[in-house]
């Protein structure tokens, strides 16, 4: 790092994130050298911001692959460093697969325990999106990634269902709490997009099981696309009739 005339200079930074399909997402920025120490330290916040802002070098749909590995190449002031990003499965965390009646991937730390339980529902795309669950497991939780729209595992597409039965998620919570690595009698339920309303209304239906609900980017006072039901309770949806969406 150098200072010119007692002024900090602007240092170019380039971050290239390459996903499991070989798609490269590039982000360029600068950091004021006042943001660095004498050894040119790039903060993790700056790195995460840049990774998040990366633009794909070719036109592509934004696909969410089931997590395998990522490479992040960081170039600061012409010097390069590569980060190999792994899920930690088989190393720092354990993965279990539930299939059949419940379609879930379960992650928890390889050592220690028992662990508090997080139930996680992602958006409605037909993929098991494990990455956030793996990240949380690496932080010391037993995390159950719940599949609910996965025809590849025998589930009916949500677009073809009449309603979503919240008993499915309740049963998964109860099963998770009985796991030999689970701690406690309540869970945190985290949901995103379509998964947000599933988390929200399961939490309303089963207050004794869900101590904390964290949602993002979904329906707020009603489920999206199709009603949710729990016993004789019905939570009417605020979404266009899905038949209306079909060609």
């Amino acid at each position, binding site marked *: 790092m150098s200072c010119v005339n007692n002024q900090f200079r602007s240092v170019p930074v380039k971050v290239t994130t390459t*996903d499991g399909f070989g798609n490269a997402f590039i982000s360029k920025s600068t950091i004021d050298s006042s943001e*660095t120490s004498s*050894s*040119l330290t*790039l903060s*993790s916040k700056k*790195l*995460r911001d840049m*990774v*998040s802002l990366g633009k794909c070098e070719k*036109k592509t*749909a934004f696909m*969410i692959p089931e*997590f395998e590995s990522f490479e992040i190449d*960081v170039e*600061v002031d012409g*010097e*390069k*460093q*590569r*980060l*190999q*990003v*792994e*899920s930690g499965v088989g190393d*720092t*965390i354990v993965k279990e697969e539930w299939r059949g009646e419940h379609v879930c991937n379960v992650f928890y730390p390889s050592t220690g325990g028992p662990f508090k339980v997080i139930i996680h529902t992602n958006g409605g795309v037909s993929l098991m999106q494990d*990455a*956030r669950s*793996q*990240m949380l*497991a*690496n932080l010391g939780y037993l995390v159950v990634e719940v599949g609910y729209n996965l025809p590849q595992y025998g589930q009916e597409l949500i677009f073809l269902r009449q309603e979503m039965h919240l008993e499915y998620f309740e049963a998964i919570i109860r099963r998770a709490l009985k796991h030999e690595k689970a701690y406690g009698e309540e869970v945190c339920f985290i949901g995103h*997009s379509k998964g947000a309303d599933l988390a*929200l*209304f399961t*939490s*309303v239906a089963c*207050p004794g099981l*869900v*101590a*904390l*609900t*964290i*949602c*993002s*980017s*979904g*329906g*707020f*006072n*009603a489920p*999206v*696309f199709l009603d949710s039901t729990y016993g004789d309770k019905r939570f*009417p949806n*605020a*979404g*266009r009739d899905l038949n*209306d*969406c079909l060609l």
Partner: protein
Amino acid sequence: MKLLDFAHNSEDGLMRMIGPHGLPGAMSLAYQYEDHPLYIADSYDSGYYLNPKALEISRSYPIPAPRKMLYFMTLDDPIVAPTREMMIAFMDEFKSKLPSGVEVEMLDAGHLYVMPDIPGNENSSNSLKSSFSLL
């Protein structure tokens, strides 16, 4: 009107949706209360506004009250609202009526604001000469 009436083929082969009157944000047209779209537009110039009828119906839906909830609503997110102004206006409907234990935070972010593949476990290669390090 079918939602896919708003779909258009693009040069890159992907099908994209364009809203009424050529406005962006068609995906959020999926939100409707009892057949009344939440976001409507009369013309390109007027842009979107909240449909009073849909809002009226929306107010009859109880605000869910889990024991404790943090809800992060994204502002630059055409999946949930065509514009950030519409998202703010819609959530303003609830701001003064939030049940105890429910907090709502507005995020300046898109739908997938957290890249789902951000490090679960990161290892820095030691093989490359480096005079900088990552915190």
